[in-house]
């Protein structure tokens, strides 16, 4: 087979790049190892219910890279709803915040503070960091925050944001990058969108764009090598139904992660500083998510609950049953806990799971009464991580091979997280590839 651009892997980064390039008139082929498209950015219908194989926290909204891509390629529309509120649950008090006012931190910081002077001090420091000078990435956000307050509740509040917007803790998050993420993600002023069938609707829509423009999308097709000759990528070798396929291409876009991409193309073909950068920068975190179903709703609330309580380890509970009926397992009420280990680089998922169960019992007073059943345990690590690399430890989209690009959540531009960052990396690569090929 021959094409302009071959895309290895169909995560949201690869699919955004592929859809944009196909829409620009280029011949595109996408090869995916798994039976469905999207990688971690997907949802599956299982037992008549929408299941999120990766995180239910993966979101997008108006003005975000996924949203921009869908507009730019004139993607088919699908049914969506917006998440209007999220809840901050403190010990004995709570605050429901409208998602479109997420950039206004005053009410929630005021609830976490001991007095007005502390609120003003923290808000003043944030304002300075947003508008005057970003802190550098040489200290962590926790070290930065400690200059202004040692109030544990405020630290936990920011850890709620950090673990939901990047899957790592504030003592791991580079300070500058955390500020950029808050600026870019929290203060966009648009509520998040969830589609009826989950992230699958986004991926299906992009797939239709690729096919509409005569592109090919193959699943259960594992790429075993990227062919490099004379310092340039020439295409890929893959296996489909037990047969070898060779695809010749002018440009190769890899959505397989930088480390796997180096293996596929051969270490000897890369420039030394690129290999060193990948080795030094990539830090892959891990985390545990547990999905439960209860016979009665645990709370009269649908959406995300951020747990701002130093006694709790689970900082985020998701209860989405009020949004879409088809997200309910067996007609019951789904609730998901997301637990980020204190050290995301080294942890035992079995211990994190025990902690998560204990927290559930402490957090929901009616836990036993609602007859919770564990529906699914999910550990994210290694090649199936919450993020391919810590925020602030990501790479650009260019490899040292001139026509080989890397997109995905190890290649998020500064300030972008998770699926949004992966999508943005795909958009950036696609724009630059278009400039050379169209």
């Amino acid at each position, binding site marked *: 087979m021959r094409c302009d651009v071959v895309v290895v892997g169909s995560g949201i980064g690869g699919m955004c790049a592929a859809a944009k390039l196909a829409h620009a008139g280029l011949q595109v082929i996408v090869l995916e*190892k*798994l*039976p469905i498209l999207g*990688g971690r950015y997907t949802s*599956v219908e*299982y037992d008549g219910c929408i*299941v999120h*194989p990766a995180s239910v926290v993966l979101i997008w909204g108006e003005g975000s890279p996924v949203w921009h891509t869908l507009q730019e390629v004139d993607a088919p529309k699908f049914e969506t709803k917006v998440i209007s509120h999220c809840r901050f649950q403190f010990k004995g008090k709570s605050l429901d915040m409208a998602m479109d006012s997420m950039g206004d931190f005053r009410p929630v910081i005021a609830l976490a503070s001991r007095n007005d002077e502390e609120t003003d001090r923290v808000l003043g420091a944030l304002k300075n960091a947003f508008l005057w000078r970003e802190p550098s990435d040489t200290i962590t956000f926790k070290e930065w925050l400690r200059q202004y307050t040692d109030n544990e509740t405020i630290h936990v509040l920011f850890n709620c944001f950090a673990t939901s917007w990047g899957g790592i803790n504030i003592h791991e998050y580079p300070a500058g990058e955390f500020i950029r993420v808050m600026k870019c993600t929290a203060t966009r002023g648009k509520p998040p969108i969830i589609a009826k069938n989950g992230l699958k609707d986004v991926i299906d829509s992009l797939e239709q764009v690729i096919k509409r423009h005569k592109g090919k999308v193959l699943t*259960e097709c*594992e790429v075993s090598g990227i062919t490099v000759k004379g310092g340039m990528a020439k295409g890929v070798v893959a296996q489909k139904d037990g047969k070898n396929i060779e695809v010749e291409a002018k440009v190769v876009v890899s959505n397989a992660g930088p480390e796997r991409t180096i293996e596929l193309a051969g270490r000897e073909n890369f420039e030394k500083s690129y290999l060193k950068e990948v080795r030094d920068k990539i830090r892959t975190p891990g985390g545990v998510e547990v999905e439960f179903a209860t016979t009665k709703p645990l709370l009269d609330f649908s959406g995300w609950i951020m747990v701002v309580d130093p006694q709790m380890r689970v900082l985020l509970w998701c209860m989405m049953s009020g949004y879409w009926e088809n997200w309910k397992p067996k007609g019951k009420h789904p609730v998901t806990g997301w637990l980020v280990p204190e050290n995301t680089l080294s942890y035992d*998922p*079995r211990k994190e*799971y025990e902690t998560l169960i204990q927290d559930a019992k402490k957090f929901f007073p009616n836990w036993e009464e609602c007859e919770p059943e564990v529906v*699914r*345990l*999910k*550990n*994210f*690590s*290694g*090649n*199936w991580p919450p993020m391919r690399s810590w925020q602030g430890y990501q790479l650009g989209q260019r490899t040292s091979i001139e026509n080989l690009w890397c997109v995905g959540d190890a290649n998020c531009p500064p300030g972008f997280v998770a699926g949004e960052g992966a999508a943005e990396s795909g958009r950036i690569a696609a724009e630059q590839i278009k400039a050379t090929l169209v």
Partner: protein
Amino acid sequence: MTVSVDEEVCIGCSFCTLFCPEHALEVSRFFVAEVASDRCTDCLKCLNCCPNNAIRKG
């Protein structure tokens, strides 16, 4: 039963469980996928669905 899970490689992500028509795959609290031999019909649909290539034939 002709499939097995490499416990050293499996991380317990539960992705494979979504592709087994017989519900024979389950991730336990030890975070390893287990195949229930009485339910597995050897359809091999799970073979290509592990992100970490931990599911093997035989």
